[in-house]
């Protein structure tokens, strides 16, 4: 077993019960597992939700996370996505300061990243960017010099590629 800390993306299929998010996040907090991001939403099946959790830890921690999650009665399936080829995406809305003179420059950044401008105000605009975490980090870094007024990220959602 290695003891290197790596980032893992875990998908957890859960019963859509009140309190289930609390059970899952509480488990992480209580056992000292870290949560980098957590997203929840409907799944393909009615009555079930899918949570996608990004966590840091060595292999032993990851094994414990999976086993402890399975102990929750409302947890139906746990999949370690990062052990397989996966698609991971995050969405961010970035409200960036933009005097009219700076707009073309910012639009240039937006286009290169295949992001979109979804709102324009007198001296600010909202940029929407979708991609993996690194891409969003990069986008934020590039927009930083213009002045970021507000930033909201969804956290990662993910899926295994292909037919698996």
């Amino acid at each position, binding site marked *: *077993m290695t003891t290197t800390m790596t980032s893992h993306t875990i998908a957890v299929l*859960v*019963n859509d019960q*009140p*309190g289930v998010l*609390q*059970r899952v996040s*509480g488990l992480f907090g*209580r056992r000292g597992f870290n949560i980098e991001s957590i997203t929840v939403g409907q799944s393909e099946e009615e009555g079930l939700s899918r949570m996608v959790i990004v966590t840091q830890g060595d292999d*032993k921690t990851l*094994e*414990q996370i999976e*086993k*402890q999650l*399975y*102990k*929750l*009665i*409302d*947890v*139906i*399936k746990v999949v370690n996505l990062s052990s397989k080829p996966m698609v991971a995406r995050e969405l961010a809305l970035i409200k960036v300061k933009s005097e009219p003179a700076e707009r073309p420059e910012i639009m240039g950044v937006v286009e290169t990243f295949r992001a979109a401008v979804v709102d324009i105000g007198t001296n600010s605009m909202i940029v929407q960017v979708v991609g993996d975490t690194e891409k969003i980090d990069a986008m934020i870094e590039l927009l930083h010099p213009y002045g970021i007024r507000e930033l909201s990220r969804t956290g990662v959602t993910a899926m295994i590629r292909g037919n698996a």
Partner: protein
Amino acid sequence: MSAQIPAVRSTEQLREKWMKPEVITGSEILLRSLVLEGVECVFGYPGGAVLYIYDALYGFKDFHHLLTRHEQGAIHAADGYARASGKVGVCIATSGPGATNTVTGIATAFMDSVPLVVITGNVVSSLIGTDAFQEADITGITMPITKHSYLVRSVEELPRVIHEAFHIANTGRKGPVLIDIPKDVSADKTLFEPVQSINLRGYNPKVVPNHHQLEKVAAAIKEAERPVILAGGGVVYSGGHEELLEFVTRTEIPITTTLLGLGAFPSGNPLWMGMPGMHGTYTANQAIQNSDLLINIGARFDDRVTGRLDGFAPHAKVVHIDIDPAEIGKNVKTEIPVVGDVKTVLELLNPLVGRSDKADAWRSQISQWMADKPYKYKDSDTELKPQWVIELLNDTTKGEAIVTTDVGQHQMWAAQYYKFNQPRSWITSGGLGTMGFGFPSAIGAQMAHPDRLVISINGDGGMQMCAQELAICAINNIPVKVVVINNQVLGMVRQWQELIYENRYSHIDLAGSPDFVKLAEAYGVKGLRASNKEEAKQAWKEAMETPGPVLVEFVVSKEENVYPMVTQGSTIDQMLMGDCE
């Protein structure tokens, strides 16, 4: 020796009658469902949020309801009932303070994997979340200490929820399940049809182990030169004690049983090395540390057993048999994991194994250790030694009694000096170490076994945490023999302060304790006191001959310590031997 606890009246006809669909209230659904789940005894305490339930209980005769004097008493009694019987213990408390008073008991049961169904009332649904009078988010509060919990949203859910709760509590790795019922749900009516089936997609405890893993275990046993078995509470809970005896008889591997595993293996068997860990035997700890194969059967490598983890069983290949996969590899690296129910695993494993032939030198080494370093204490003719008192109890009962303990030195002496021969006859709070547990848990054990002798061994500190339940023994004539080992201090704390905090005895003096004999008498329970051996023999004889509950106070020496001892941060072979030297 028989408790005068009347039999409950629930007959087959009644059950049959209740299987017929009928429109009734949530409270009646609850009571009927409990009867259909086989409940014989419920421990509880009423209040506003459970008044509909208590109204339905008026004149109800199909199971016992014992009104304790504190919700903590109720939940520990339900726990003792469950541990003694193997059935699910049931406790009822009202919302808010009633519910929060059960928290310690829920955590106690959770840590020791005891099946409980805890029913709490809550404020009416429309008031939930408004900080209403006596509202507490008990499902939220207890989430980390329950196996599962339900906040019931409507009366229609109730039959299913109760049925599921019992199923979850008493299967797989057992544990407490909470059902929180808002007041309106207990009043609402619906058509009640008992639920027959259970559909829990995410819950499928693995009972039958992987055969390939069993073959690996058998091969490892054949090769081992210094094998050791470490058996825990899982053996008791799965009912696998006979299979364990067969396993040990076949392989002739020396065995140690954890605190919760006491009774899972007959203490008279020459291969039994006693308990391991912090206050375990020299032999058990040396054996583990020197073993080349450590077979863990239903124990969870608690830190009181392992001591310093990085130096634990350094040469051993580890086999771990557990129903809970999350236990395997959690604390100790495991080479051969076996997930399954202990009884089932051993049933399948036994035909595959034979005597471990390479271990003869090892067996004689172990016998040598056992002969050289047994538990020992310095007896006295002037004052009572607590270890001597435990031996006195042991001599008169010959391992036939059910013994419950509280937490502290007396608990460890009981574990060391009482000899257990049957499972479910030793009831103690191992994982949480809950003071106040000993006495009420004995009430539960006695309700489970009205005809057996139940002895509850307590310290003078812990006895004062739930002493009010003497009332329950008196009015219901529950014949528990309550032992108080009075050393006038918080003994175990005193021991740590002496050995680790340089005799700085900070706040351990129990001056101001009641006269325990008078306390018992105040509740209508017979009280006896003994300060020397003659008095002790006399008092214990009298207690044995007296039908009904008796409290016996043994005034013992104050300075006695529990030995051997492994202090925190040491590996388990680094033991302070004290009087055992």
